[in-house]
C-alpha cells in the first residue's frame, strides 16, 4: 500500500510522520537528534530510504546525518565545510567588507538520480556538494566568485543559500536563491553562475531593480515545466516563464505582500500555494487567521483555504522550508508552523487537519511519497 513519510525539522530535533494513502492516521517518530536544530531533512528521489539531515548547534557546530533505512537509524557523516580558495568578503551591516564564515547548512538537496550526490546550501551563502554520500563536501566555488559576491549582504535572518532546484530536463542546470542576494543559475553543473533577477523589484534597496540584493524567500518549480518558476520574495510573489531570465509580479489579490514558503501542486503546474504573513516585523498571519492561499491560474488570482485551519487568535509563522506536497493521486499539501503544528491536507488544500500540534518550532517540512 502506498503512503507518505513527512520529514519535519524543528528547533529541537527531527520527527518522522508516516501514514498510508488516506493520510488520516499518523505515526509520529522521534525526536531524533533531540536538542539540536534540524534545519532540513530530505530524502533521495533515487532511493527513498536514503535521507539526509542537517543537524546544527550553537555549541557544537554542524553535523550531517544520513539514514539508509528511511529514518529509523542514522549515521553521522562528514561535517567539514571549508570555503574553497580565497575566502573572500561580502557586504556587512555597517557597509564594510566581512569575511565569509561558515555557520550552518540550511538546505540539503539530494541529486535527482544519484543517492550519493547531495547539494548543501550554507550560511554564509555558499553551495557545497558531496558525491560520496556525505563523507566529504566540496564548495562549488563559482557561485560566490562570479563577481557580485562582495555586494551580497545578510538579511535579518542571515545570508544563506536556502533554495536549490535542479532542472530535470537540463542536466547541469541548477537554480539557487540567496537571502539577500537573489536568484542565480548555473547551466554547467555549478562551475559558472549568472544572477537571474531581472524584473524583480525590491523597494527596500537603493536601486529597486538591481542585479543583486533581492531578498528572495523561496522558489518552486513543477518538474514537468522546468522553465516556469514561482517565487515568494520579501515583498510580492513573482513568476518567471523563461527559466529565470525575467520575472513578473503575480501577487494579485493576496492579503499581504510578504511570506516565506511557496509550493506547486504535484499534478497541476498552474496551481500554487503560499501562506501570506504580515510584515515588516510582525511575521504572523494577518487578522490572526491562518490561511493558505491557492492560485489555480499560476498567480494573480488567489483563494483563501481555511477549512480546518485556525481562524482566530493565531499568531504563528510558517518558515520558508516548511511547506511541501506529496505526489499521491489526490495531492497532499503539508506545512509546519513556529508554534509546533504540522497541518496536512489530503485534498489539494480544500480541507486541513493537524497531524501534530505541539512539536518544537518547525523549521522545515518535506514529504516522501512511498510506493
Amino acid at each position, binding site marked *: 500500500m502506498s503512503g507518505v513519510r513527512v520529514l519535519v525539522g524543528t528547533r529541537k530535533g527531527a520527527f518522522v510522520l508516516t501514514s498510508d494513502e488516506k493520510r488520516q492516521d499518523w505515526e509520529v517518530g522521534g525526536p531524533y537528534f533531540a*536538542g*539540536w536544530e534540524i534545519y532540513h531533512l530530505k530524502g533521495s528521489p533515487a532511493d527513498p530510504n536514503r535521507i539526509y539531515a542537517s543537524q546544527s*548547534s*550553537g*555549541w*557544537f*557546530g*554542524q*553535523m550531517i546525518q544520513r539514514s539508509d533505512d528511511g529514518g529509523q537509524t542514522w549515521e*553521522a557523516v562528514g*561535517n*567539514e565545510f*571549508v570555503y574553497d580558495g580565497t575566502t573572500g568578503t561580502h557586504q556587512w551591516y555597517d557597509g564594510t567588507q566581512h569575511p565569509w564564515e561558515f555557520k550552518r547548512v540550511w538546505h540539503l538537496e539530494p541529486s535527482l538520480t544519484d543517492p550519493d550526490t547531495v547539494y548543501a546550501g550554507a550560511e554564509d551563502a555558499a553551495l557545497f556538494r558531496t558525491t560520496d554520500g556525505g563523507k566529504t563536501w566540496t564548495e562549488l566555488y563559482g557561485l560566490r566568485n562570479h563577481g557580485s559576491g562582495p555586494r551580497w549582504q545578510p538579511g535579518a535572518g542571515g545570508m544563506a543559500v536556502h533554495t536549490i532546484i535542479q532542472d530535470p530536463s537540463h542536466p547541469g542546470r541548477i537554480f539557487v536563491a540567496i537571502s539577500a542576494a537573489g536568484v542565480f543559475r548555473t547551466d554547467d553543473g555549478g562551475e559558472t553562475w549568472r544572477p537571474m533577477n531581472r524584473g524583480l523589484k525590491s523597494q527596500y534597496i537603493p536601486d529597486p531593480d538591481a542585479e543583486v540584493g533581492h531578498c528572495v524567500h523561496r522558489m518552486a518549480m513543477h518538474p514537468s515545466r522546468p522553465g516556469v518558476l514561482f517565487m515568494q520574495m520579501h515583498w510580492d510573489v513573482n513568476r518567471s516563464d523563461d527559466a529565470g531570465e525575467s520575472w513578473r509580479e503575480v501577487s494579485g489579490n493576496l492579503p499581504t505582500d510578504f511570506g516565506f514558503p511557496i509550493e506547486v501542486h504535484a499534478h497541476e503546474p498552474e496551481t500554487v500555494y503560499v501562506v501570506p504573513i504580515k510584515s515588516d516585523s510582525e511575521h504572523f498571519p494577518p487578522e490572526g487567521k491562518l490561511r493558505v492561499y491557492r492560485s489555480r491560474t499560476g498567480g494573480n488570482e488567489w483563494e483563501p483555504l481555511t477549512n480546518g485551519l485556525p481562524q482566530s487568535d493565531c499568531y504563528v509563522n510558517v518558515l520558508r522550508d516548511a511547506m511541501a506536497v506529496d505526489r499521491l493521486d489526490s495531492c497532499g499539501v503539508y506545512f509546519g508552523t513556529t508554534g509546533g503544528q504540522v497541518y496536512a491536507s489530503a485534498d489539494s488544500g480544500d480541507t486541513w487537519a493537524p497531524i501534530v500540534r505541539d512539536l518544537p518550532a518547525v523549521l522545515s517540512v518535506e514529504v516522501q511519497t512511498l510506493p
Partner: protein
Amino acid sequence: MIRVMLPHHLRTLARLDGVVELQVERSPTLGAVLDALEARYPVLRGTMRDHVTLRRRPFVRFFACEQDLSHEPPEAALPEAVVLGEEPFLVIGAIAGG
C-alpha cells in the same frame, strides 16, 4: 590514563556512556588530549574546535582541577592530577541560552 568527561550531546554523538579513558602517547598537552579524543571518536571532529584552524568553538569550554583551561594554547601542559588520572578533564557546553 587521562579521563575525559564529555557533555551529553557529544556523548550521544560518539555513542558512549560515562567517562572516556585516553592513553596519550606524546606529551599530555591540551591539544594532544583533543587530538587523541578525535582520533578515537572521529565524529567529534569539528564539534569542539574548528576543523582547519583548530580554534576552540566559542561555546565550548575546557575545565580541570577547578581551573578554566579554555584560553590556554594547544601546547599547554595539563595539570598533573589530570595526567595521573586523579582528576577528569572536562569538556563543557557553556550555559548560553536555548
